[in-house]
């Protein structure tokens, strides 16, 4: 009774084929210079390197956990680069590529995976909220923030748009659907960006939905569309259009970026238990970086020197990631009591004082 799934396969919005051919799309014209495409290529390569370094750091015991973005670089860089400085993003926990676009430093991003903090960066400084682990929760935060934007009157061509990221699995969660509804009813300037990477840990898409995810939107009264999530140009064009639409007061859009989680769910996971290698091979052919490289090469938009310089930059980034990670300072024990409350709290103050005294007693005894 679980195989009644009916799969309709809609057209993907695609601008750049896996072979590197720039086809364009009538509804999403994209004026882009060779320089800009090279910049996107650079972003893609760098975040993939960042990610692979983090995986290694986890293996070496420097990180407690890592959720790899491998395969989802285009979805993240395309959407991240569509954002303006004043826009605000509400990520899930895998949006390292978006973080990169928002200027979050490796040391800021790695903190929570190393376990030295539960956050790591200032959301307001970067226009990038903290990672949210409880699936779906951030979709409501984004919607509320967007309702605040409306109340500030920050609507119009120079307005502020909000974007929130979540996965295919997250579309099953009540909060995500409540966010769709609040956003629709309030016509809030928010873009729901779903990275459909085909898996929620071990559960394939069919366990979450029996029709394409982008279709969910119309039932809530706003547009939804599916973009080739491995095509950075299509993602850029589509997300920019959705953000502009929101910013100008026309309400939410659901963007389903059709992509693939090429690695494990996290470093704790073993995908060989639940999916076969053939699927991975199929998706490798659609690699998000390869097609940009092909495009640049085939059209003579970049030479070996360019690719070498990007690789060198990636090496330098790798070095920086390793160093910054290892140099992250450990918090001190009394940090447990830090910022539980904004205002002085007698109860916390007392526990802190008692614990400080307790710790001091060991120092006095010269142990611990």
């Amino acid at each position, binding site marked *: 009774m679980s195989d009644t799934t009916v799969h309709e396969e809609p057209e993907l919005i695609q601008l750049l084929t896996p072979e590197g051919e720039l086809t364009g799309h009538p509804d999403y014209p994209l004026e882009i210079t060779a320089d800009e495409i090279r910049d996107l290529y650079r972003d893609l390569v760098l975040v993939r390197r960042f990610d692979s370094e983090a995986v290694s750091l986890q293996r070496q015991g420097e990180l407690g956990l890592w959720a790899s973005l491998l395969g989802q670089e285009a979805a993240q860089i395309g959407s991240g680069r569509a954002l303006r400085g004043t826009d605000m993003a509400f990520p899930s926990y895998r949006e390292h590529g978006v973080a990169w676009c928002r200027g979050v430093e490796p040391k800021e991003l790695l903190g929570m995976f190393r376990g030295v903090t539960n956050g790591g960066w200032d959301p307001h400084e970067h226009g990038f909220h903290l990672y949210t682990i409880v699936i779906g929760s951030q979709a409501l935060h984004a919607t509320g923030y967007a309702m605040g934007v409306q109340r500030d009157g920050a609507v119009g061509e120079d307005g502020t748009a909000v974007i929130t990221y979540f996965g295919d699995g997250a579309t099953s969660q009540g909060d995500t659907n409540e966010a769709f509804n609040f956003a629709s009813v309030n016509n809030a300037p928010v873009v729901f960006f779903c990275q459909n990477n085909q898996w929620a840990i071990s559960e394939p898409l069919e366990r979450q939905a029996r029709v394409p995810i982008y279709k969910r939107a119309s039932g809530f009264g706003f547009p939804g569309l599916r973009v080739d999530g491995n095509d950075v140009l299509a993602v850029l064009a589509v997300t920019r259009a959705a953000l502009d639409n929101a910013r100008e007061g026309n309400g939410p859009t659901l963007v389903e970026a059709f992509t693939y989680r090429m690695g494990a769910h996290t470093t704790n996971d073993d995908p060989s238990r639940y999916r076969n290698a053939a699927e991975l091979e199929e998706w490798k052919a659609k690699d998000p970086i390869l097609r940009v490289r092909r495009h640049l090469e085939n059209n003579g938009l970049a030479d070996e020197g360019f690719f070498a310089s990007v690789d060198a930059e990636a090496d330098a980034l790798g070095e920086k990631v390793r160093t910054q990670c290892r140099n992250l300072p450990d918090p001190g024990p009394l940090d447990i009591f830090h910022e*539980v*409350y*904004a205002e002085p709290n007698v109860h916390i103050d007392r526990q802190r004082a008692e614990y400080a005294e307790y710790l001091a007693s060991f120092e006095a005894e010269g142990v611990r």
Partner: protein
Amino acid sequence: MTNLTIGKAINAGLRAAMEHDPKVLVMGEDVGRLGGVFRVTDGLHKDFGADRVIDTPLAESGIVGTAIGMAMRGYRPVVEIQFDGFFFPAANQTFTQLAKMRRRSAGTLSMPVVMRIPYGGGIGAVEHHSESPESYFLHTAGLRVISVANAVDAYWMIQQAIRSEDPVIFLEPKRRYYEKAEVDTEASIAEATPMGAARVARPGTDATLLAYGPMVKTALQAAEADTDHSIEVIDLRSLSPVDYPTIVESVKKTGRLVVAHEATLTGGPGAEIAARITEECFYHLESPVIRVAAFDTPYPQSRLEEYYLPDLDRVLDGVDRAFAY
């Protein structure tokens, strides 16, 4: 001085807060045109408009979740949960997000969100409309939890809660909404008793009777009724944090403590207070801390609530038990 019911005092406090700070918003189910099912937000929609008094879709997680987002954008949302029993759909946003956001962000983000909840029993309602969920809140680090027992506190504490940079659960004793008191609405908020302080509502020497919210009135009646003893009544006011110095001082004087609440006994607020006071007043207590609470059952059908809720007789019985040691 204005003679106000608790309900009207909260309404006046909300109005004062909205006038004081344009970032203050009210949101919830039916809080707009209707003014809330208890009319606590009456008139605010008319005077402050639909952008500041928001009738939300029927979804409590959505209400609290969007309030968090608004707080991040610089607003100070006052959320109404229509009845105690309908808090639970919002549990995830409250416990994993609202309560933890400041700590998660190492202080970068504040969550000045107030969650107003009409709570407690005694109004003859159907299921889910009479519960006392305060224990879930006070066990959750990152939240402040307060309850009011009279119109003066209602007027000031709602304003203090709104000015707090921390999330505050504001518990309104629904069966006492119509209790009246003289409120000096012209006074300065700076002079109001801080919302974290307990208050000796009636001085006494033989035993301490501690209550909050709807049970304060019952406690005062019990103290009057017990003509054999001099009972000191403390109105707790803040359930998190608890003002222990005030309680300890009283218990060291009286040697006996009775805690009364509508929440169920096991794991209720009285458990924590008993454990803590026993630690702090071990050599002063002449009897164990006695708890008078609702039974450990779901809130029953309304025809049984007079038996279920700790009433005057059961509070007096608790006092008697304390003197039996």
